[in-house]
């Protein structure tokens, strides 16, 4: 309620206090301008994995260097590929899980996994056509490498349909796991808020 209470108006009068306040405001403005210039410089710096990550996950105030417009464009273009790949990777894992749980036989597993080889290959082809800022070349290579690993994992997995040897699944899981780590590395640079506390 107090905010609604009005106070009588007084005629404006410029005194020492007001002058001091004015000087203070000008000073603050200068500091803010300087900070903006500095931030502008920081924004053009390459994104690195060692960027400071502070602030609450829910709070929405991560304190890290912003991506440049070129980097933003790259991140935005890569996102749908990344999202598709995550889903496909999990589908591949679940094909293996379903087989191990006895819910499907190895032929059915092959039917589920074999199409994913093309998905990973096409994704790599699509990603390799993206315009990559020099500052994100490392992440780009990591992402392409991860796609190659996923593709190789899918090829390895379907071999079990031929000879029934479970070593293929173990080998494929190792590749898939390594790929999942690499996509996290890329995600850490491009989409730091990708995963939330659950």
């Amino acid at each position, binding site marked *: 309620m107090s905010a609604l209470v009005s106070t009588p108006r007084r005629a404006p009068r410029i005194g020492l206090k007001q002058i001091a306040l004015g000087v203070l405001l000008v000073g603050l403005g200068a500091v803010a301008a300087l900070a903006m210039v500095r931030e502008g410089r920081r924004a053009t710096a390459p994104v690195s994995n060692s960027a400071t990550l502070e602030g609450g996950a*829910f709070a929405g105030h991560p304190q890290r260097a912003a991506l440049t417009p070129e980097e933003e464009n790259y991140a935005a273009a890569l996102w749908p590929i990344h*999202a598709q790949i995550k889903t496909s990777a999990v589908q591949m894992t679940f094909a293996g899980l379903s087989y191990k749980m006895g819910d499907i036989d190895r032929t059915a597993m092959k039917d589920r996994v074999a199409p994913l080889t093309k998905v990973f290959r096409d994704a790599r082809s699509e990603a390799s056509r993206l315009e990559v800022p020099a500052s994100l070349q490392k992440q780009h290579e990591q992402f392409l490498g991860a796609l190659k690993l996923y593709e190789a994992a899918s090829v390895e997995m379907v071999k079990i349909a031929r000879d029934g040897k479970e070593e293929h699944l173990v080998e494929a899981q190792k590749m898939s796991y390594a790929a999942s780590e690499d996509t996290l590395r890329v995600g850490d640079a491009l989409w730091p808020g990708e995963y939330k506390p659950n």
Partner: protein
Amino acid sequence: MKKLVGAVTIALAAYGALGAATAQAQNCSVWLVESSRFMNVPFGAFMPDRAYVPGSNSPNNSINTVDLPVNVGVIKCGKELILYDSGWKQTDYFKMTGTEHAAPLPDQLKMLGFSANDVTKIVVGHGHWDHAGQLMDFPNAVLYIQKEELKGIEWALNYPNQRISAVNTSPGGCMRTPACGYPPKTLDEIYGKVLSGKAVLVEGEMEVIPGVKIHPAFRAHTAGSQLLEVPTSIGKLVFGSDAYSSWEAIRDWMIANPQQTDTVQQFLAYEKCYKITGGYQNCVAAHEPLSYTDKYPLTKNSWIGINGSRMAEIALASGERSRKP
């Protein structure tokens, strides 16, 4: 439940049944370990009923942000060393914005005098990345996860509407879809346990060892959430992972951390703890902000461990030495 995993499950279930027939339930020793802490989380995002209202004098609405620990239970019953949840491992590439005091679980166990190789079983309350990580760091441990949890993920993953199926739906944010919270890496770790023959896909209730019981709490946080009942010298404890995200929520009957939660099922999971333990004091919460303080009495016997993470000694079985420095 067929083939290899089924065989593992059946074999272990049979072993459990045999054990139950020949061995008496014994009291277990229990510690709580903070895997990491999510800092400055708006209270209302964690518990809607506790949302901050500027200027409010209500104790329920006067706290702006809270720090959420990620708690892991360490349970020693005779020669069995059981983890309830396995936290997550912070790495150079997976830091999780807003996290502090992260520490690798094997190193934390070392502080308690255990080796990662000593861990015989890991019961995960659910499969989210911050509760089912680090599995590969415990090579001898058998993983216990509800089959319903895996079915729930797969169902969401294959659902035709992307609002449901998406692992993550937009840059910079996981939108709480049912498939959200399960990164490929976490699922590959679970799959790795299955491949190595060290996984039990639990279907509903199960006695892991005499007196230590899994209770299903389906949809109390995720599709296949599960609780763990543990007998101790201070009475029975019930671990709840994110079905029991907040101990205050159990005490005050409020929902907490509502992700893919059916809130009625979450309340039924709370009720389970009341029924098993006779109240709310012995319910062990995964993210209770008051953990390791006098305000959450069960966890007050605490100390600081690696990287500022905290630990608590909850109960000691007869003859068990204290691990508190």
